[in-house]
């Protein structure tokens, strides 16, 4: 805490390197209030994934504040966040925990820490479809995803898929939206802007 308030502001030219805490806060849209965390542990106690996480959200925030970047980013904590927002509505300091988790996912991927199981791949497969068609085909995605990632479970998933198929609940081909070209242009531009932000170090856009 003290370290931040004491940061000397150097002349404009050389941007002071942001602390890990500042970077995480900047990458979270809106006001994350992460610096307000009082380490009460309410979040971890409310978290349905808490028992499976390397660190509870509270613990993770302590690591972030201590600038323990690698340890924090290589943990599975944010990958196990199911976005239930229990922590957010209970946090006495209104820390915007769930969005911080999403920001940490992006950072971990960017910095090559995304070794945690299947979550990043699942996200990639999903958005691959969205970028190509404009709509996802959800369960179809799940099936394809499972066959490439967890072959051991494929029989189980196969039964599930057959049940869904019998009820016509499984799309074999995704719907392509009419404005797909416009959407792709939009996403292309967004990726360009992201690359630019990476170059210039505008963390708040990442």
């Amino acid at each position: 805490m003290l370290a931040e308030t004491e940061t000397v502001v150097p002349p404009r030219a050389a941007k002071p390197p942001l602390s890990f805490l500042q970077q995480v806060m900047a990458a979270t849209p809106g006001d994350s209030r992460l610096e307000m965390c009082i380490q009460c542990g309410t979040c971890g106690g409310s978290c349905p994934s808490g028992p499976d996480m390397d660190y509870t959200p509270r613990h993770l925030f302590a690591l972030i504040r201590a600038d323990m970047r690698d340890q924090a980013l290589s943990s599975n904590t944010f990958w196990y966040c199911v976005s239930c927002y229990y922590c957010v509505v209970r946090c006495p300091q209104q820390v915007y925990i769930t969005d911080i988790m999403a920001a940490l996912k992006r950072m971990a991927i960017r910095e090559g820490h995304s070794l945690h199981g299947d979550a990043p791949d699942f996200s990639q497969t999903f958005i691959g479809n969205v970028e190509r068609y404009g709509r996802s085909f959800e369960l179809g995605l799940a099936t394809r995803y499972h066959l490439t990632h967890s072959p051991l479970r494929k029989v189980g998933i196969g039964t599930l898929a057959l049940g869904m198929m019998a009820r016509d609940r499984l799309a074999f081909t995704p719907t392509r939206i009419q404005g797909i070209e416009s959407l792709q242009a939009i996403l292309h531009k967004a990726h360009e802007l992201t690359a630019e932000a990476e170059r210039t170090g505008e963390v708040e856009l990442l």
Partner: protein
Amino acid sequence: MTTSRTQYGYYPGCSLERSASAYDVSTRAIAAALGLDLAELDDWNCCGATEYLAINKLAAYALIARNLALAEKQFAPGDGSGGAHKAQLVAPCSACFLNLRKADHHLQEDKTLAVKTNEALAAGGLHYDAGAVKIRHLLDVIVSDVGYARVKELVVKPLTGLRVAPYYGCLFSRPHLGGERRTQGVRTNPEYPMELDRLLKLLGAEVVYFPLKTHCCGGHMTQISADVAYELIRRLLQNAADFQADILATLCPMCQLNLDAYQQQVSRHFGVKFNLPIVYFTQLMGLAFGIEAKALGFGKEIVSAAPALARIGIQAPLPEGEAEKPKRKPRRPKEALPLPVMPAESEEMEL
């Protein structure tokens, strides 16, 4: 607008196109009965669920904002001054509801993000004025705008004797988006909302005590860590069973999918036998309004709702494909599981 009733933009979301078509069908059916004017958003795209935000922030916001921009254009055309919630967009999917409203909220709050997002939108010839479109959840529109009184008037076939567990999941009541603009969400108790309870009671159903009603069903965890997801699903099913629910009513396609489609696997995993039909609240509304079960998407659920409904004298179709079920081994080898195919490959796929 010349019509006296409010027109709502309708954002079905990808799930409602296929895996949750029962939700879509029943929503449209009861909207007609309720006099709710839902106009589908033209050429909407997927909102990206939670996946896109995990990869790329600007692209995630641009993806969502395309829908907002289209909604502004279609439902609130005009000066482009924004800010005034000139149009309303209704989402039946809780995940879409959150994504859309969160994006709008942050675009209002975060000017840099808004400028960059619009820069991306401009590449596709679009623009969004943050705040122009108010995002609503379908349940909220029904109870707050149409109102309980109107719903009650329409009940002709009360669901007397049906014990229903009201399941809200996470994203109907959470989160409140901070600051002054809390009204963006549903104003309710984030952990123990009562809207669905009240609504179901008006339909004549017996609403069981369901303490876990806003606990998480695991979301996309079924795809990532089965053990984590199965335990979350088990807790919910067990809780509903403990209070002897005949059926569970949900308001989110992802929750429906997790609790319904994974129920067998969860049963097997824990060595318990769950048998809880998972239906959409809109389907139950339709039944109470006297609409035929067939027209409400019944039969799409994996765990059949027919036996539970038969007990209260309602005939519902058996799950589709159930007739062919007797264990006939599929002729295809096990490796040839139903892979989704890209359009180009689809010719080779014998269905």
